[in-house]
């Protein structure tokens, strides 16, 4: 533990500090967007968006290496593919005559397939594992600004449209009758989810981003029955998970992303167990 603290406060070593700041900052995005994902029950949509991001990353890498593309890099590719996937799923959910789960599954798988094909055709060694499972220790100062910017956008939208987003998540039909543009706000929610996923893929990777979107919010949902409180608790839990996960993984030389997810999972299972036990106690 002392090693961890010494490295953390060593002014000449920045990667651990950046990792901790990234974890704490991203907790805002995970807590707020995750609460909507859990309470609106769109975690499968979030899963499809996060996996489709690999397609954009693959195309970005390919163009960067083959055509020396400065503007279309893995990050812009990830952003574009996440937004396109969110809009396609949003459109199909609203207007399409296709089965929603089939489209979600298709986007999930096609995105990954495109990404892996482009990565395979990109010269030089590129390890898809770093995109699939992320690496919080590779966070740069630019990433921190990006996460802070995303947090600002999400917090502003969450405060400004709290009542509206709550209403469309609880009862879309009634929200429509009150004059709310429910299609627009549903797409806004999906776009927020997509933005969160893109930035946070750097921290825990494509495969596990869904866990940090759902586990802290899911645990918070057991502890409170109010949306705003659920967001605050989810943010705090996420901060605790990333801090414990980071220090534990550093001390024991474990990969950080999976350690954070495992800690989130353990807390969630404990919360479910305690809640079930208390309910059972009330029944008998």
């Amino acid at each position: 533990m002392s090693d961890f603290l010494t490295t953390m406060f060593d002014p000449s070593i920045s990667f651990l500090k950046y990792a901790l700041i990234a974890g704490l900052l991203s907790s805002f995005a995970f807590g707020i967007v995750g609460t909507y994902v859990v309470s609106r029950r769109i975690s499968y949509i979030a899963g499809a968006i996060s996996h489709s991001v690999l397609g954009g990353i693959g195309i970005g890498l390919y163009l960067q290496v083959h055509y020396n593309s400065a503007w279309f890099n893995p990050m812009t590719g990830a952003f574009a593919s996440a937004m396109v996937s969110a809009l396609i799923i949003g459109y199909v959910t609203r207007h399409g005559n296709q089965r929603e789960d089939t489209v979600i599954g298709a986007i999930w798988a096609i995105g990954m397939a495109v990404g892996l094909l482009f990565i395979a055709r990109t010269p030089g060694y590129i390890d898809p594992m770093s995109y699939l499972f992320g690496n919080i220790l590779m966070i740069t100062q630019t990433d921190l600004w990006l996460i802070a910017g995303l947090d600002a956008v999400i917090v502003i939208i969450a405060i400004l449209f709290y009542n509206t987003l709550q209403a469309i998540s609880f009862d879309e039909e009634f929200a429509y009758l009150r004059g709310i543009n429910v299609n627009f706000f549903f797409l806004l929610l999906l776009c927020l989810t997509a933005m969160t996923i893109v930035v946070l893929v750097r921290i825990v990777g494509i495969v596990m981003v869904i866990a940090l979107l759902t586990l802290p919010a899911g645990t918070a949902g057991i502890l409170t029955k109010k949306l705003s409180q659920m967001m605050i608790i989810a943010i705090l839990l996420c901060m605790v998970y990333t801090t414990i996960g980071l220090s534990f993984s550093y001390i024991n030389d474990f990969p950080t992303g999976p350690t954070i997810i495992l800690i989130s999972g353990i807390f969630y299972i404990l919360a479910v167990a305690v809640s079930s036990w208390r309910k059972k106690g009330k029944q008998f």
Partner: protein
Amino acid sequence: MSETPAISIKNLSFSYGSTPVLTAADLSIRPGEFNYIVGPNGGGKSTLLKLILGLIQPDYGKIEVFGRSPRSVRARIGYTPQQIQFDPKFPITVKEVVLMGRLTGRWGRGYTNLDIQIAELSIEEMEMSEFKEAPFSELSGGQRQRVLIARSLAVSPDLLLLDEPTANLDAETEDKLLKVINNLKGEMTILMVSHNPEYVYGSVESVICVNKQIAVHPTTGVTEATIIKSFGDNVRIINHDHSCSITDED
């Protein structure tokens, strides 16, 4: 000059795909009336409400609410759907549910003190004040229905549409809820879908029987024979010891 009807339906037809739900239906309801809608399952009761709300569009015919298209007057309509449509685990309090009635389409508008005051009055009117901070998910079926009606009242509606508010409730809770709804009579036009037309005959102006077509009967004219005619053959009359008769679908 004649009074503009609260609801005016002329020659209306609607079908889901190739299945006709309403055919050449006509209806006119005066402002301030309290009417019941009855009819068999699949007869078009809920569809009629959705048409009046502008949630779906008719294939043929015309609907006007207060002389205008349903969509343009939706802010004046309070609507209580069947509670079965809600996610029972959604994290929201009673007060937050009722405040939804004060939402408008204006971007980024928060709730004002007046909105909160109106919501609290609506909660009080539904006798739910002691539960206003309680999670919606922890209420009983009857309490949830009261909250949803309070949400419709928070709209300060000129027209209140209630879709089977007493469905799945026990007789005692149903009775209590109907008494509360009856107290709203005269404050607004009320249209209530019910599976049980027995309860408020004394206070409603007329009973609207919906079964592909619409037939309006003054309450004094509704007899067992009328109900059987509207529901079809699949209806039996049960005579209880306490000498009330209840229609029931087979």
